[in-house]
Each structure stands twice: as structure tokens, then as C-alpha cells.
């Protein structure tokens, strides 16, 4: 029983943390442009130097 008192809050806390991170990511527009994010990887940064 004493183990549960520690483990359950940990499980809930980790789940809650995941949820909080998801909300944060959504508010910051991380999911606004998924196709763009996939394409931006391919942009060549070297071009600036030319």
C-alpha cells in the first residue's frame, strides 16, 4: 500500500506533464505548419554565405 502512495502520484504527475507539454506546444504554434516543418529540413543554410 505504501508503494502505491508514491507510485500513483508519480504516474499522474508524468501524465500531467505530458499533457502540459502538449498544450504548451500547441499554444506556441508547433503544429501550425507540419508540411512546412518537414520541408524546412531540406533548406540549405550555406546559401547565405554565397
Amino acid at each position, binding site marked *: *500500500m505504501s508503494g*502505491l502512495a508514491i507510485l*500513483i502520484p508519480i*504516474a*499522474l504527475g508524468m*501524465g*500531467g506533464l*505530458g*499533457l502540459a507539454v*502538449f*498544450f504548451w506546444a*500547441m499554444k506556441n504554434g508547433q*503544429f*501550425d*505548419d*507540419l*508540411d*512546412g516543418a518537414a*520541408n*524546412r*529540413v*531540406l*533548406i*540549405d543554410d550555406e*546559401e*547565405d554565405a554565397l
Partner: protein
Amino acid sequence: MTAPATIAADTAQELVDTRFTVPGMRCAGCIAKIERGLAEVDGVESARVNFSAKRVAVRHTKSLSEDHLTQALLELGFEAQAAAVNPLAEDDRESKALLRALAVAGFGMMNIMLLSVSIWAGAGGATREMFHWLSGLIALPVIAYAGRPFFSSALMALRYRRTNMDVPISIGVLLATGLSMYETLYGGGHAYFESAVMLLFFLLAGRALDSMMRNKMRAGIGSLLGRMGRSASVFQGDGSLSRIPADELEPGMLMLVASGEALAADGVIEQGSGAIDNAMLTGESAPQTVARDSAVHAGAINLLDPLQVRITAAASDTAIAEIARLMDEAGQSRSRYVRIADRAARLYAPAVHSLSALAFAGWMIAGAGWHQSLVIAIAVLIITCPCAMGLAVPAAQVVASNALIKRGVLVKDGSALERLAEVDTALFDKTGTLTLGEARADVEDLSEAERAIGLALAQQSRHPLSKGLARSLGLAKTAPAVLSDVSEVGGAGVYARCGGVDVALEKPAGAVSAMAVSLRIGDETKLIRFTDQMRADAGDTVSRLGTLGITSAIMSGDRQDAVDEMGRALEIEGQGNMLPAEKLERLYAMKAAGRLPLMVGDGLNDGPALAAAHASIAPGTASDASQQAADAVFLGEKLMPVVDAIRVARRTMVIVRQNFGFAIGYNVLAVPLALAGLVTPLIAAIAMSLSSVVVVANSLRLARAAK
């Protein structure tokens, strides 16, 4: 907070955000080019591309005008159009709210499941009671948050004395939560928290899928009045010019329309002559020659010399605004269409409610006591709650629309797919729909040198015929020649020197049809004719539609003889010289006769017909307004996507019916168990997830069927 005085002090330096729609961006290179190119423009602080929405947000000083930025984008090689503040914000908010609710429901479901599994595994006594309390503490806020979309929609329906899918869901969830709370308080054996939360999770998944599909399709579609000139240069009493916004223009004013500018109001030309591009209004690709006393309409673009136009109708009285109004009215009739999920709910909801009421009454009469009767009644409600039904339609439609995107068809929403599956007649517009809608030059008999010079000259001009020639020669893999001393004379042509010889691409001498230019090299001239070619697979498309049981016809605003010629080539009947209102009338007549017409058209003149038809498809080259009115948009030069869209839509409806059949079959099996009082929370949870998985798996078969 900044004091207002300091803001006023440097308004010119104040930063503002402007959004542009840039339909032409296709790859990572485009993103880099636009962002870097715009950042180099004076006064631009930053530019950020949203690739999914084909949009770029520019932060710039107020002194930099929209026109400057559009021009800058054009120089980078992208056609752009300033967009309204954020037309997608409304849809976007809805889909974000659903995603948040889904995340919360998922979090709640996982944690409550964790506790429930230990109870099912045999935890008893104090442990079970504690777990019930914990589950309740998690479930109450989760249900309050994640259930809102359903509760508000159910309330709305009840307020209008109707019922929809959300009414049984809300009642089921609320009753299950209430009963579980009661069980927890009095130390009962069964709590249904996990079933209530799981139900919300699966249903929210269906809703979120549906809403994301709609957003994806709507992104990038501009607004109707965006194309119309937003302001005009008007002559004041003293002969000076001043810029007046479109909605403050009045009949009788004299406006000056510069080359390349869009007209902001209807009017009659008072001075000047030249050509206008009326594609926005009529869908015709050939420029229309205009002279003194010609009537011109808002939305047309002046291609050549400046024109002085006396305004006859402005703002909401213009022809384009009239068409927008017609479209609006025609669209109303379509909103009466009831989606299949709601049709099912109309039958389903009363059946479920009376069944659980009967269960309660039956067990009461049998002498089971009100507590046990209520538990059984709620078990009936939960197990019949349309989990599989809520997923049946959106899951199939999302898979189908993703498969269609790969074939170049964008279907706007689920209701469009349902209506596309039902059509029995196809009506085609001619120009731009059965044909490519752009002037293609006949370059067969030009020599290699002539082609190179022609291409180099054509690239210098933005005249539609020059663009057409450049495109045709580009397709023929020509490399442009090197020119010097290039000059363009509005209304005449492009002149240059090439290898010591005078060359020109100019208006043909004498009376030749408008669709031709003459290429002059030294003393030799050659006439290049343009035609608007029929889409290569138009004939195949019509015959394939025939095998699907759909009869085709042409309905065009073009001349009757041109329509007849096209009709003979495709072996279908056609009617020409039709006004937008006449097309609308014919559609209404067909609908009254019980037919379900599909309209395929591109011009703004097809807009009302597209909005009124049972279902409609527009090519990607269509005017913005038509794309907005249509249910689906197809890209590319082929017409076959129209057939694909109908085929996949029909296949989708087959899958949806299978899903419904499965959901009903599952209820037929599960309901007797629930009625007999044998359904525990464990059985309810297993049955619910199993039925959802089967429905989703069945829908995934569509991805293969669409190939």
C-alpha cells in the same frame, strides 16, 4: 504599455503584419527563396512562410504598401495576393479546441484505465474504494473539459426541439458519471468512469479527424472580393487624382485604371482603348478588346494602356457582387442536405433512449429495485452509445480524402464526399473545364531559331498571349535566345535586337482573329495562332462517367456553334449562350425532376451553378470564387480526376454502410447482454474499444481501393 503619443510620433516606422496567399510554393526551395528574398526588401522586418496554408506572414513598416510587397513577391517568381486578416482563424480554433479536448480525454483515459485494470484484476476492499475515488477525481474534471463539444451541441439541438448524435452521447456520459459517483460514495462494486471517458476519447478522435480534414482542404482558398480592385484613382473636380477605397466609390465618378490594375467598379470607358482580362468574370482566356463606350466590369484587369472609366455601378451593385449574391442564395439550398451520420442519429437516438427506458421499467416491474434497474439502464445506454458510429463516417472519409489528394483532388468536407457519391448527371462548362482554359500556341511549324527568339521575346511580357507562347515553347524544351535593347509598347508588342537583327513579337497587321501574334525576325514575319485545346482525356472521362451510370452534358456561356462542335467531338449534347441565372434555372429544374446533378465549371459565371448543384467540382485554375463554391477542386491538366472523385466517393459510402452495418450488428449482440444485466464495466470497455478498432481498420481498406 506605451503612451499613445510615442506611437503617433513615428507611425511610418510602426510595424504591421500583412498576410499573403502564395499558391505557387511547392518545395523547400520556395520557402527559402520567399523568406530570404522578402527579408532583403527595405522595410521588411521578417517574413515567415506557412507552407501548409500556402501563406506568408510579413512584418513590415507601415510605409511599405501591400502593392510593393506583392511586386517584390512577383520579382521572386511567385504570384501573391494579400489575404484577409486570418480567414481560417475560426475553423482553426474549432479544430484546436477539439485537439485539446482529445488530449485531455486521452490523459484521463490512460490513468483511469490503469486504476480500473487493477480493480478488474481483483483488487478489493479499501484498495478498490481508494481507486474508485481516484478515478472519480480524475474523471470529473476530464469529462467537464473534454465533454464540452458534445454537451453544447446537444443543448443547442434540444433548444430547437430536435435531437442529434450528441444527445444520447451526453445523456449516456452524464448518467454514467453520476451513477459512478453514487457507487463510489456508497462503496458500490462497479464504477463506469473509464467507459464514460473512453467514450469521449473515441468520439473526439472522430470529430478531430473530421475537422482537421476540413481545415486542410480549405487552406489556401482565397476570398472572392480579394480579386476585385480594393481602391481606385479618381479624378477630383480640379483634375487631380486621389486614391479612394472601393466601397466609397459612387456612380458618376471618373477613375483612371493603370496598366495591370484590377477594376474596382463597373463602368463605361470614356477615354482610351486596349484590352482587358475578363477571366475572373467569364472564365474566357482570350483578352477582350475594349474601346470608348465599352462596358467593363469590376474584377477585370487592364492589360494595356491606361483607361479612363466612368463608374456606373460600385460596391455591392457591381456585376461581381451580384454573382456573389446569387451564389450565396444558391448555397442555402445545399445547407439543407442532412449528413448520413445525422440521418442515422435521427433513427438511432430515439431507439436507444426508449430501449434503456424500457430496460429500467422492465427491471422495476420485475422487482429488481431502483438501484439495480438504473445500473442496467445505464449499461444499455453506454454499450449502445454510438462509438463505432461516431467513427464510422469520419474515419472512412479521412482515408478517402487523403487517397484523393494523392490523385490531385481536394474534397472540401465529408458532406461533399457523400453528395458526390449520389450524383447521376454531370454538367460541364466548356472553356477552362473541358478545355485547358489557357491559350496554347501552335508552334509545330516554327524553326529552332524562331522558337528561341519567340520564347525570349514572350518572356519579356505579361500579356496572356505572351505567357501562353512562353508556356507552349517551354513545353517544347526550347532555350531562349539572347536579346538586347528590349522594349515593350503597350497595345503593340515587344521589340528587341538579336544578333544584329530587329526582332519583334507584335499584334498581327490587318484583321486577324484576336488569338494570334506575329513574330517578326528581320523582314520575315510568321503568324503564330493560339487555340484553347480540349483536355486530352475529356472523351475518356465522359465515357467512363457513362459506365458509372452518369449522363454528361455541356452547359456553357460560350457561342452555340462552339459548344455544338465540342458536343459532337464528345458525343454529348450541349447548350450555349447561357447566363449564370439560366444555368441556375436549369439546375433547379433538374433537381425538381428528381435528378442529382454534378456541376463541373471554372468561371465566376459558373459560381452560382456550382453552389446550387447537388455536388460540384472546379479545376485548380478556376476563379477563387468558383473554387470556394465547389465541393472539390482538381489539379493538373487531366479531367479524369472527376471520375476518380466520384468512384472513390461511392466506394467510401460502401465502406461507411459496412461500418454502420457492423455497429448495428454489434449492438444487436451486445444489447441483450446489457438488458439481461450481464454487462460489467470490463465488458463495456472491451466491447467499445473492439468495435472502434474494427471500424477504423475497415476504413483503412479505402486507401488501397482508391489506387
